[in-house]
């Protein structure tokens, strides 16, 4: 938080700039903010509340919270389909964690090359990388599907390869860019010192860049996890067997069953599916908010 430094301000009683900033009176402003918080949180609280209502209460009690807490929706929802939600959670966790590993490794290597090494056509490749930043994944999904299908990877022994292979090849340009920006802040004198000590490009990477890039790696890891956990489009396209489904794909199965009785279990599983992201948010709130500042990425 940057506050107005008192040294440069004339010695008046009121903070000199505070009043002139747009934003209104403190009390009024606080009231508006609290109202916005209510609007923002209402759907989330309603979701949790509904997931804890009995079938009868879902129909009759339109209030935000249940009169009697009934966790039955969670057990019903957990085993609502032929495959238990536990399996879907394991699948999602595996895909997300491997994506974290893949993105961390491959993007770090690419970023080091862009940020520190000099090689032919570096400028051109960097421009290409920036160009892929805005490339919508929907444009590539059809040919990627055909390609992976031709290679026998779609619905193969391990159907997650089409989801994971791109992640091990630094295709998330956002993270490459984020790491390049970060590495540019690492003092070059450290490289020089290591070079004098006889380190080559690999040694510098191993002993200077890798350990110092930890903050960028952590940001990448958190965003990778959350985005993959929430991702639906690719998982929908590439996963076709029920037992391979990830949580988001499995959740859409609830929509097919139009009966009113599915609402409770559906909400219960929705709450569970958001829980990991929420916990990440609680644990790393600051880092997440600052992470999108440095890279300016989508939420």
């Amino acid at each position: 938080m940057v506050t107005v430094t008192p040294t440069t301000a004339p010695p008046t009683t009121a903070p000199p700039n505070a009043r002139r900033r747009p934003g209104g009176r403190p009390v009024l402003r606080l009231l508006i903010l609290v109202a916005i918080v209510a609007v923002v949180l209402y759907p989330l609280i309603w979701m949790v509340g509904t997931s804890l209502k009995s079938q009868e209460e879902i129909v009759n009690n339109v209030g935000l919270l249940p009169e009697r807490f009934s966790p039955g929706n969670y057990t019903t929802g957990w085993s609502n389909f032929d495959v238990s939600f536990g399996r879907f959670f394991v699948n999602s966790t595996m895909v997300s964690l491997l994506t974290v590993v893949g993105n961390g490794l491959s993007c770090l290597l690419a970023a080091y090359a862009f940020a520190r090494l000099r090689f032919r056509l570096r400028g051109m490749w960097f421009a290409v990388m920036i160009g892929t930043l805005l490339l919508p994944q929907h444009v590539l999904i059809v040919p990627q599907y055909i390609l992976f299908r031709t290679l026998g990877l779609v619905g193969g022994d391990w159907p997650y390869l089409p989801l994971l292979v791109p992640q091990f090849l630094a295709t998330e340009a956002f993270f490459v860019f984020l790491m390049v920006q970060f590495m540019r802040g690492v003092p070059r004198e450290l490289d020089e010192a290591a070079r004098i000590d006889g380190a080559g490009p690999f040694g510098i990477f191993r002993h200077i860049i890798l350990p110092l890039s930890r903050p960028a790696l952590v940001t990448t890891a958190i965003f990778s996890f959350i985005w993959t956990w929430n991702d639906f489009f690719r998982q929908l396209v590439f996963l076709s067997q029920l037992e391979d489904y990830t949580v988001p794909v499995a959740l859409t199965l609830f929509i097919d069953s139009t009966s009113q009785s599915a609402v409770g279990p559906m909400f219960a599983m929705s709450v569970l599916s958001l829980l990991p992201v929420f916990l990440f948010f609680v644990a790393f709130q600051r880092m997440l908010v600052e992470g999108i500042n440095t890279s300016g990425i989508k939420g």
Partner: protein
Amino acid sequence: MALTTAPEPTRRGPGSARAHSDRRGPGRIRHSEGLAGYVFLSPWLIGLMGVTAIPMLLSLYLSFTNYDVLTPFSEVRWVGLANYERMFTADPSYWHAVRVTVTFALIAVPLKLAAALGVALLLNRAWRGVGLFRGLFYLPSLLGGSVALAIVWVNMFNRDGAFNSLLSLFGITGKPWVNDPDWALETLMVLAIWQFGAPMVIFLAGLKQVPTELYEAASVDGAGRFRQFRNVTLPMLSPVIFFNLVLETINGFQGFTAAFVLSNGTGGPVDSTLMYTLNLYITGFTELNMGYASAMAWVFLLAIAVITAIFFSTGRFWVHYSDGEDR
């Protein structure tokens, strides 16, 4: 590894260090470093070729064919511009999807950015509690793109949903908004606007960069709060507004998950939520019309490129860079 370390000096000492730095003349690329560059870049390069470039070219080729996954490649028939012709002249649902997507982006993006900027202005001062509010407002941006939240949203705007019970407090009888072709897309817009937190955080960072001296100067010149906003905040913030506008527009065009969940993958009711990407998905993966879907994908890509180019070319008229040069 051994390959590249071999030409490096093995013993440290002043001599070898100097010899080392002598070789790094401006513009000269040491062989080992050039090689290392490509070694480190290789995963990315393979990805660029295998996952991006080749699929793009394949998709371009397929867009001139009738490919449908089921027939082998050898029997794929070249149909020339037929897919594009169909798209532009003989496929009303395509144009309907374009209209839905543009409507969505034209309404949801400005409102989302306005909400983001408004809340950022409210938060823009160092006081206790800012961090808490900032975090709470950011939370929907983390959760909002998920299937789970789309499910909640659809139910919230259904007949017995939370929104109608809220309306009933004011004596208004609601309707199942998500089943009404006139309102279904609007509920998705509200979901997008609800996620104003991410651009808000970027606005907040931008607001911190505005020098307080400018406000002081404006205030000395007799500018009220509104004129300060109009003549100081907005111009100083214009690069950030521009950035958010480009990013959110491109994101807005790609909305898929919520539309899929609301319509159970059909784009309904009555095609009212048939977003471009959903239409592409249905064409490619439900109807298996992959040649046609590839053509759609390429037009989508070109459209996004053109829109981005338009943004950048008009940007010079209203985006102010504080280093003195208006680019």
